[in-house]
């Protein structure tokens, strides 16, 4: 049953992602992106990470997509529609991509057969940690404290960098 749902969600994610990158209308692309994000959130729910799913919906489908729409509305994107969206090298690119997908797909498919299944996280352990939010919080501020802090610097650089490059006069 869980497997069935996984395949459904995976199909939704992949399908909408393909639709997203092939749309010529930016607003349509963003709407397809929303569906991708919702698919990812469903995967989180399947993994019983409800909090992460809620954050995914709130931040990505809520915040990020609205920002995207703002940018599309504010910036004049008229020229984009004139650009050839199919690259001149699309045929070799497609063939190479297919080759890569088959190769990696084969290796992952065969390889996954004899990988030991992940140990079942027992309900008791999760409950002992105090549920979803607490578990995530504990993990972030203990085991992953350093990457968490470095990630905050990463966001700072991204922000300052974007402002610096976008501003006309510094």
């Amino acid at each position: 049953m869980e497997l069935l749902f996984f395949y459904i969600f995976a199909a939704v994610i992949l399908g909408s992602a393909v639709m997203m990158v092939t749309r010529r209308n930016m607003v349509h692309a963003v709407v397809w992106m929303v569906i991708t994000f919702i698919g990812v959130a469903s995967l989180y729910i399947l993994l019983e990470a409800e909090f992460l799913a809620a954050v995914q919906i709130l931040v990505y489908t809520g915040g990020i997509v609205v920002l995207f729409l703002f940018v599309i509305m504010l910036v004049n994107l008229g020229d984009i529609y004139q650009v050839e969206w199919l690259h001149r090298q699309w045929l070799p690119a497609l063939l190479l991509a297919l080759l890569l997908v088959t190769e990696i797909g084969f290796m992952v498919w065969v390889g996954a057969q004899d990988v030991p299944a992940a140990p079942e996280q027992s309900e008791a352990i999760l409950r002992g940690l105090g549920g979803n939010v607490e578990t995530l919080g504990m993990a972030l501020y203990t085991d992953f404290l350093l990457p968490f802090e470095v990630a905050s610097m990463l966001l700072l650089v991204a922000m300052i960098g974007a402002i610096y490059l976008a501003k006309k006069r510094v």
Partner: protein
Amino acid sequence: MGSFPFSLADLEAIAPEIIVALGACLVLVWGAIESARKRPRHFAALTLLTVILAAVALVSLAPEASEGNTYLAGMIVLDSFGIFFSAIFLIAAALAVGASMRFLDDHDAHHPEFYFFMLCAVLGMLVMSRSINFISLFVGLELQALSVYVMVGYLKADKKSNEAGLKYLILGGFSSAIFLYGISLLYAATGSLALDGIREVILAEGLQDQYLMIAALVLIAAALAFKVAAVPFHVWAPDAYSGGPTPVSLFITVASKAAAFAVLLRVFLIALSPMRDSWSLLLAVVAVATMSLGNIAALTQDNIKRMLAYSSIAHAGYALMGVVAASTVDPDDASFAVAAVLYYLFAYTFMNIGAWSVVALLRRRGLAGEKLEDYAGLASRSYWAFAAMLLFLLSLGGIPPTAGFLGKWYVFTATIQSGWTWLAVVGVVNTAISLYYYLRIVIVMSMSEPADDVELVHSTPLTMTLVAAVLMTLLAGIWVSPFIEWVRGATLLLS
């Protein structure tokens, strides 16, 4: 759950990182004051001070490094390998600050943000080179990469700089995604993200020939080959290095490359060491392609920045040769080979920074002089600049008595000792090819008549960078024993 699991020792262990992060934030906050922005040299001084303080913290950590303790829940290790690379990043940052000041003034782009990005890049490199867990390793790598993308596109008025920054960003983001994919497959197969944890699982479960592992290995190798600019993942490098501002190229051809090599060595020699039979030949082929293509492409360049960019690709190939040699099972030979790579990177730091700072010295009609013909008659114009450039080029070409010669000799010896004689032969042939284009610059500099609209701009900080690079290139080639001892010590805890 228990109490907060960290102690003061954890903070002490990452003191250099904390100092650099604080310095970066201070630059940013101080740079928000309008009146302070008018004196950009103060920010350069603050950056230098930060780097020096971080270096002091690093030196004070050195005595404990031999124990190889891990900190912050096993994310960071304090070992002499990490300290060696941290020292390279700090040295490169200090020298790059010296080379940047006048250049940015002349291009009307001397803002505090430049130093903020540089310090953040250094922070990312420090975290990268000392991480022993894929999570912190990746976050550090991204911090470094993101800062460097902005630095490459830093000259907003310059179309070439914009283009270079954008290209680097897109391709870099792509390679990071490939790296993540590799890491996730590795996690799926082994259930661990710690480098030594992965090795133990591979050995315990006999996963060497497992398909998932091989897919992960190939993806990780591709991503790291991109980060060190190895063929066939090098196409971004000539554009990024020649399009970006010269002092930025000076910084990233050395520091970013060294950081990527630190990650490459740690990942392949610790986490993936049981799979050495799979990756040694792969990396050997990449090394041959990188050396040969880098050198042959450099032959035809008329732009000195592009030539040096291809030369830096070729040098990544020589260093990769040492990584291949380190795949040998004999621990002594392996440690010798790692020491060779470290020494090579150390020598490369100074000779490459030196060559790029001579490029930063030259102006044609007020802007950077990049064409080979701009260098015509440099010898008659400034004897010192000519002598310095000659030294750096000879060192890059591997002529004694320079650091570059010893680095090459060390790497070739290690390669032969580990039984990769054919690889060493390819390396020697490539060295001969590379001499052609290095000497071509020398000939242009000494033979031709000087052009009228080319000038040398003198500034004390740039001169100091040059003097430091000259001294170290000579010193590491002549008075070798302390440096050799240092790199030998830095390999202790790796294999």
